[in-house]
């Protein structure tokens, strides 16, 4: 098998759904499958961190298990999250924030792949949170999207610009606030963090 000539599947790179610029724009998104963990709590808290660890552990275990079995290779996508209350009034108490952290996954990944990965991780003693990982399919359809550069707690300015933009197009926000993390907050200074913000919209 000539693996080097084989083009590796990459759901992120070159995908127009992820080509955001600082100026808000409309983007049409299709159905997408994710590995996801739902939770409540501050993004600085332990539950959020555990969920991300469980997601990455599961994502890489599934990828490598399939690759080892000769089922093809693909790139593990960026971390994303839904914040259902964030484009309305999330409240000042971060410990009550609801979120779904997720990693986009090729459609051929099955519930069986997920169960197998959770089992093998648990057997290794690396199973913290893996039983909360689920496969999720969403279809956001038409969205307003913009690239936010800067700290997460200054997103409101970018969201306001997106709301104005939606209004100019006679559209309104109609779904969970969606964030796609292009930078690693542990290693990139807050002023340089890049995050794609996405808001599903409907007419009216």
């Amino acid at each position: 098998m000539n693996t080097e000539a084989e083009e590796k599947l990459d759901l992120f790179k070159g995908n127009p759904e992820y080509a955001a610029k600082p100026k808000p724009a409309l983007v049409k998104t299709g159905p997408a499958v994710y590995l996801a963990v739902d939770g409540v709590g501050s993004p600085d808290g332990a539950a959020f961190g555990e969920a991300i660890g469980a997601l990455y552990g599961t994502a890489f275990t599934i990828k490598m298990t399939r690759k080892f079995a000769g089922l093809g290779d693909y790139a593990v996508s960026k971390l994303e999250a839904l914040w259902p209350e964030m484009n309305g009034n999330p409240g000042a108490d971060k410990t009550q924030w609801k979120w779904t952290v997720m990693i986009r996954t090729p459609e051929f990944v099955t519930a069986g792949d997920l169960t197998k990965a959770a089992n093998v991780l648990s057997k290794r003693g690396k199973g913290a949170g893996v039983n909360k990982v689920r496969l999720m399919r969403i279809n956001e359809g038409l969205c307003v999207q913009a690239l936010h550069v800067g700290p997460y707690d200054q997103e409101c300015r970018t969201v306001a610009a997106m709301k104005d933009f939606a209004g100019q197009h006679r559209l309104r926000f109609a779904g969970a606030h969606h964030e796609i993390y292009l930078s690693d907050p542990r290693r990139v200074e807050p002023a340089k963090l890049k995050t794609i913000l996405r808001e599903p919209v409907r007419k009216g």
Partner: protein
Amino acid sequence: MKTVTLGDYKRRMLQVLVHIQQHLDEPLPLEELAGVACFSPYHFHRVFKGMVGEPVKEYVRRLRLERAAQRLKLSPASVIDIALDAGYESHEAFTRSFKSAFGMAPSQFRMARGVRFARVPSGVHYCEPPSKRFRTLSRGGRMRVEIKTLKPMRVAFMRHTGPYDEVGKAWDLLLTVMGKEGYLGGNPMMLGICHDDPEVTPPAMIRYDACLTVDDGFVPSGEIGVQTVAGGEYAVTTHTGPYNQLGKIYAEFLGQWLPRSGRELGNSPCFEVYVNDPGSTPAEELMTDIYAPLREQEAVR
């Protein structure tokens, strides 16, 4: 605490430069050069390149050619004799090297007037007696470096022997085999230990270990072995950019930052920690932490 100064480093490197010039007829292996001034052989080539601005091998080759150039001017010896003295086995090979260094063939050079050696970063050229000073580069002196104390780390590893740009194969195999067994859970570290310098060792002989941190439960099997990365103090700097720029960063780190740091390197190889996934990160955003082992500081009696 007893600390070493930039002056100490320069004095020791100068000893090496003088030794090179006085032994141009000998093979001058790296271990010997490192030993001349008590540099750790693991890191000597990078310290040299960073301080002097040229790889050791290049430097030695250049000095041999410059000595040959001087002999062409000052002695009646035949070109072939001078070529042999410079370590070349044929007239042709010598002429080729000579031309690329001085822009003309040895016979033309002999007749030409007022030729000069090309500028080099260190400012050191062949002369009798050997030069007693050299220019050190300082760019890397301003790098952001952190001193970290590590506990010993147990790592599963796969050895790659061959060109550095093919280490991806070892990674592919290691991560696939370890990944399906669940060892990629719990956010393990991915380390690369390069036992040889791609700029010194022939590509086919470069030894590189692709390593993944594991706990005591891991049992090595097949091509995957286990080793322990020594604990202790390390100087750590982060490179953001393509992996093929690492050679330059190592040279600045060990040859320019280190001599100004008051510290010396320990007798074990450096290692790299890959912070993000090369499978999904653009080359210019790749982050690599370079860990250089430090020798324990001696207490002053």
